């Protein structure tokens, strides 16, 4: 995983609450057997018209927001199925971070495990971020746990353990393999009991 330090980018906002993983990725994409190339299917029901052309009404298709690497959204983001494909789609589309009013618990961990930084901010701050001019950059500083925008800096919380993994870009399984002895001991103790 790529280490995360500072992310500076313009933002794009989809402010609905309860955006579920069914909305983030279509069923057909969930049937794939690979981990790559989900960018084109992100928000597909809203991004495309029935005939497959881009829906000009949907904010992700607005050229002013092209290249935005930070998504701003509402409450309970990533609600519903545990499909990690939803995070792969965000990542492959180019989002490095999601700033939400809050996240679904399973989805939050899927973000952490794929190096898409989940940032929870207060409702007012999310609403403010959503109304920024399209060309105004925002900076997320993970080591400092801050989001800087429009001349202000907001602090966000993230567990130190997850933060360390993201900052260093640690491979989860490799790290856990160093606990091999502890796992063996645990299994041994179980057998004895």
């Amino acid at each position, binding site marked *: 995983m790529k280490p995360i330090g500072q992310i500076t980018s313009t933002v794009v906002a989809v402010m609905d609450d309860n955006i579920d993983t069914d*909305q983030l990725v279509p069923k057909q994409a969930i049937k794939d057997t690979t981990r790559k190339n989900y960018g084109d299917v992100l928000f597909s029901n809203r991004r495309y018209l029935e005939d497959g052309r881009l829906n000009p009404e949907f904010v992700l298709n607005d050229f002013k927001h092209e290249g935005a690497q930070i998504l701003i959204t509402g409450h309970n983001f990533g609600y519903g199925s545990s499909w990690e494909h939803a995070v792969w789609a965000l990542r492959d589309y180019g989002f490095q971070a999601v700033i939400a009013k809050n996240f679904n618990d399973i989805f939050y961990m899927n973000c952490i495990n794929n190096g898409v930084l989940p940032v929870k901010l207060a409702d007012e701050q999310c609403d403010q971020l959503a109304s920024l001019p399209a060309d105004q950059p925002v900076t997320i500083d993970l080591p400092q746990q801050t989001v800087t925008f429009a001349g202000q800096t907001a602090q966000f919380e993230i567990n130190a353990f997850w933060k360390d993994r993201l900052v260093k870009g640690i491979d989860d399984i490799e790290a856990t*393999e160093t606990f091999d002895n502890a796992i063996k001991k645990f299994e041994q103790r179980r057998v004895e009991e």
Partner: protein
Amino acid sequence: MTQTMFDKLWQRHVVAGDDGEPQLLYIDLQLLHEVTSPQAFEGLRENHRKVHSPERTFATLDHNVPTEDIFNVKDAISRKQIETLRANTKEFGIRFADVGSDEQGIVHVIGPELGLTQPGMTIVCGDSHTATHGAFGSIGFGIGTSEVEHVLATQTIWQTKPKTMGVHVHGKLPHGVYAKDIILGLIAREGVAFGTGYAIEYYGDTIEALSMEERMSICNMTIEGGAKYGSIRPDQTTFDYVRGRKYAPKNMDAAIADWQTLYTDSEDDFDRVIDFDVTTLAPIVSWGTNPGMAVPVDHPFPEIQNDDDKKAYNYIGLKPGQTAEQIPIEFAFFGSCTNGRLSDLKVAANVLKGHHIAPGVTALVVPGSRSVKNAAEKLGLDQIFKDAGCDWREPGCSACLGMNPDQVPAGVHCASTTNRNFEGRQGVGARTHLASPAMVAYAAINGHFVDIRKVAD
């Protein structure tokens, strides 16, 4: 120090890590299905890793399988996903219930049925409805594919211990009101995110009186209220259910002695407690596009309060002030990990017996597993459904999620025993209305929902 059941279960499984930090938890059982596992196996292969404990892993096919002819997967992409799981389980030496096997079915139906699911365990699956298994007094939770891979490789997972919430459910369920209405009613009252950050335990005299299958329906939908975990203290009902099942412990007496220690010492141990009185609970029907958008059958749909409501009404084609009786039902679906078990089919068959579904209504009955199907056929339920005009199908997830050929057509209102009424969940443009199996059966007969408290005997 007194503790909740969840704390006790958690503590038993900590391999490493300090309190208050993410901890490395040992996983007793991982269930796999074809949708969320291919990339995990691919990751293992790429990194030359093995499956740590194949004996703690069990795989089956459910999401993609066609239910009309389960052996004939016409969709090439579905077929590839199915064949991939078949090949992966063979390569890594994992038990696999293939189509046609007596053990195949929806993961959350077969786990308990086979006795794989037991009190005291930690159980994961790449599926948000894994909370179902908490009904046995275990920690069951849904995980993403990266975590599936992590558990396959190490039999452990890093998790932050959630806060705990007790949901005290009490009172006698009124006639015509079911376990499904408890969980739908709770989410309708508390919202779709009230459980975020919490592990929920359901308790109280109402819960104690429920069968295991009813308890599973409640724990199953915990995730729709935002919580990853939903559990119930194991008791005699639990022990009687587990005893004699294929993978149940050999020494049941010793196991039960241990399971009897799994309970919450005091209500005060929960971080939060919610009270839910069922004595006045009515059958619940969802009107909108998430499970919280639901009302008692005799209540009008709410006024539009925000953009979410507006969008939901727009999609579902209904108006504030209407009632469930006014929804024109053209499709009825019986099945899923929420209500696809034998007792659910019995309730529906009991309603449909001697009746016919309304003209213009299509009804699918999809048993949750091969074993449910066999048992139902032994009781002659299949004939009752067929005589009533329903399609009797092969086991799988079917029209719960529109990923296989079973889909609800666009614009059609479906009375459904499932768990999610999201936009497009049951098919592009499909309009889902969640309810109990009895409510769905009456809706199929009448072409609209009815207040079954007034008609059911």
